[in-house]
């Protein structure tokens, strides 16, 4: 279906080759997963398939890519619209109209299909993706999973042979992500569609893909079955990690695989759950109500948070997590009830009083940036906060050494942006650090760095509150989990008890070892598993 022959790609003014002499073929109705660290060239690889490179961006391309008998070098992306359907990371960014039905019909309209054909196709797609109940809704009013389903429908309406999805679940909560992935699985199996998908959260997808393309970033690409590629790379989901640590012969890809292998394992030491007592109360929220126009985002919420805790806020998109974080940071003026941070009302604080108390990393870390280079960004952070020159830069280097000072803050990878934002915020040494969905678009490496930073900070007494959809990260780092729904707290407790009691939020290890209450790979390793048969 897709043939790459001797494809090389390099960007002008860059010495790094993205792809070098790549030759491979994607068969019909294959499901290919594209992985790699952020910035390695996953997106470039995806853009090659529908000809956005070289037609829209300035990549220098040699070799040839043929999709369904058409050469992308010669045809513009628009001319391939009947062959390839594209679904982006953030569905809202690609929507042209405001209504579900109109959005699905848009591709047909521009391509001049007859009204009767359109009617039939739109109806088919509405059935295929179960959009009947929302067909007349405004696109802005849909949940993230519904939006992504509409985006898939509007890509499929042209009857393409290939569907390309660039991190389709990165903006979604775990439940919505499962919903979208289930649809993709169905499309491959029922319609025989060829699907190319990039995705960071491997634990969600590797068990149902046919092959993995690992883009290394140095020009080399590793292609093979999931088990092959997983055994060769260090980008591993928890299940593969544990298999490697225990030297298992066959690499399990799903919870089911590992569960069957581990049935007869004997565990010597049951894990002792160490609950550290946090006594000093730093944040107190009483009867908090937040509403936007007529919609209530938070209703009557009470909460106490203590010094040194790492609190993870979980729940669907729109459950009120961000509203709560903003209220704690004093950024909402539309709330009633009391919010006290170290006995002060954060909404009344300004300037240095505020930043010395609360550090806030927004959902888009780039909102904080306005400098023209990383170095200048650090300098202006020092000036803004009246700190000694070099303070921010020093913290940045402690957090990560790999960030190029000369680059523009918008040009560094997602993970590096987050670290830069954290460095700017930490420069004033705040007592409380708030992060709003810090893991969007982060790869495993960046997440590990984040876990390390947060654990260190918590040990030194900083209180951390973060909203996150990433159960594995929460399992690694949080000491307490709060689950929100419809603006209310529906679960609040230590990480272990909350995560293991909910099927939607359970990390992989908890799903495998249901009796032991383990959350992370380290839990399992440190439990000293007795004699296991590695050949099993």
């Amino acid at each position, binding site marked *: 279906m897709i043939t790459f022959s001797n494809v090389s790609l390099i960007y002008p003014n860059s010495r790094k080759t993205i792809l070098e002499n790549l030759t491979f073929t994607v068969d019909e109705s294959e499901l290919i997963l594209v992985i790699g660290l952020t910035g390695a060239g996953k997106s470039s690889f995806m853009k090659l398939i529908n000809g956005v490179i070289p037609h829209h961006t300035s990549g220098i391309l040699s070799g040839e890519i043929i999709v369904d008998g058409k050469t992308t070098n010669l045809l513009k992306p*628009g001319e391939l619209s009947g062959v390839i359907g594209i679904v982006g990371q953030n569905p809202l960014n690609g929507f042209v109209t405001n209504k579900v039905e109109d959005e699905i019909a848009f591709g047909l309209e*521009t391509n001049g299909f007859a009204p009767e054909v*359109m009617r039939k196709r739109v109806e088919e797609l509405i059935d295929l993706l179960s959009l009947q109940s929302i067909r007349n809704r405004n696109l802005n009013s849909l949940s993230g999973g519904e939006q992504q389903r509409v985006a898939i429908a509007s890509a499929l309406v042209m009857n393409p042979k290939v569907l390309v999805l660039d991190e389709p679940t990165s903006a979604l909560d775990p439940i919505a992500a499962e919903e979208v992935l289930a649809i993709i699985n169905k499309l491959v199996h029922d319609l025989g569609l060829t699907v190319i998908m990039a995705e960071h959260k491997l634990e969600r997808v590797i068990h149902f893909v046919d092959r993995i393309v690992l883009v290394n970033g140095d020009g080399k690409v590793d292609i093979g079955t999931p088990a092959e590629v997983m055994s060769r790379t260090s980008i591993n989901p928890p299940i593969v990690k544990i298999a490697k640590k225990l030297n298992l012969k066959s690499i399990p890809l799903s919870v089911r695989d590992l569960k069957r292998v581990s049935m007869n394992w004997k565990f010597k030491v049951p894990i002792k759950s160490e609950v550290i007592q946090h006594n000093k109360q730093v944040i107190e929220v009483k009867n908090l109500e937040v509403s936007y126009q007529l919609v209530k985002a938070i209703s009557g919420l009470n909460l106490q948070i203590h010094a040194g805790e790492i609190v993870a806020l979980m729940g669907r998109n729109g459950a009120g997590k961000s509203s709560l974080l903003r209220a704690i940071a004093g950024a909402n003026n539309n709330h009633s009830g009391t919010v006290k941070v170290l006995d002060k009302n954060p909404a009344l604080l300004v300037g240095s009083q505020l930043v010395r108390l609360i550090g806030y990393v927004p959902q888009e870390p780039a909102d904080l940036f306005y400098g023209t280079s990383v170095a200048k960004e650090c300098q202006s952070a020092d000036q803004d906060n009246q700190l000694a020159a070099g303070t921010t830069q020093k913290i940045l280097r402690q957090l990560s050494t790999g960030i190029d000072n000369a680059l523009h803050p918008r040009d560094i990878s997602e993970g590096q942006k987050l670290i830069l934002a954290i460095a700017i915020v930490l420069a004033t040494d705040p007592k409380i650090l708030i992060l709003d969905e810090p893991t969007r678009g982060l790869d495993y490496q960046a997440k590990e760095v984040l876990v390390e930073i947060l654990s260190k900070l918590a040990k030194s007494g900083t209180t951390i509150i973060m909203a996150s959809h990433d159960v594995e990260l929460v399992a690694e780092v949080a000491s307490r989990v709060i689950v929100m729904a419809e603006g209310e707290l529906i679960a609040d407790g230590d990480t272990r008890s909350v995560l293991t009691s909910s099927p939607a939020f359970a990390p992989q290890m908890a799903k495998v070892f249901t009796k032991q209450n383990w959350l992370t790979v380290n839990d399992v390793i440190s439990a000293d598993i007795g004699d296991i048969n590695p050949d099993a």
Partner: protein
Amino acid sequence: MNSLTWWLWSISLSIATLRTNNNWLMLLAILIFVVVVFKRRNLQAPLNAFALSIQLAVVALIIRLFFGTIIGTPLPGTVLISLPQLPMPDWLVGIRIGGDITSERIGSVLTESLKFSLILISFGAATCLSSPIEIIKAISSRLYFFAITLLIATSVLPQIVFSYKRVIAARRMRGMHKLNIFNFRTIITPVLEESLERAIDLSSAMESRGFGYHKKPTRYRPEKFSQSDLIVTIICGYLIIFIPTLLVSNGWLFTCCLFIVFSAAPLMLTEQRVANT
């Protein structure tokens, strides 16, 4: 009603009123715009657009009134106040700053400013009443680049407002709470960068769905040109042509009544739009 008819109605209502040169009729027209927008606005269009146009109109009115009375050519008539006049060089005869302020002067400035405000408000109303996407689709086959620019602008503009609010909040958390000319850059840079990225995203999404590659795009559910559209179009033509002469020949009360009845025709001919929930 068809989106194009709404635009036609807004524009011709303002043209008809402008032709009368009458302050009261202009105020009446603004009132009609406000009522119709609140009764019949497109629930998918941002109401902010209308609120913004009213704010702009008020600001423009005040600024014009102020400068128009202080600076400009003097108009003889009843002197209300006499301000000290700045001496001007000989070659600038006819221009004065300060001096006598006559009621005729204020009257003429007021009319001029009201005209400007009315035009602003009529555009704001048309934006709220019609669906921008329908308008763009109507012109997309003819003027591709114009259409794509408009389409991107209409979908990125609300985004700019949204990201502006976000950046303001983020900025406060960087310890900056005062806004002035020197640090305005700290807001404008991230907002513009984000909207640029979004515009590029959207244009490539549209391209990959084949926008602009087919000579004759078709319509999935075209807005019909109904009987009420026809009636409103005829009424609009009548208003533009006859209102000024009516005012002269038939006097105040009759003109006002006719004006209200005719210009509020869309209210009677269309139904309240139902909110999608």
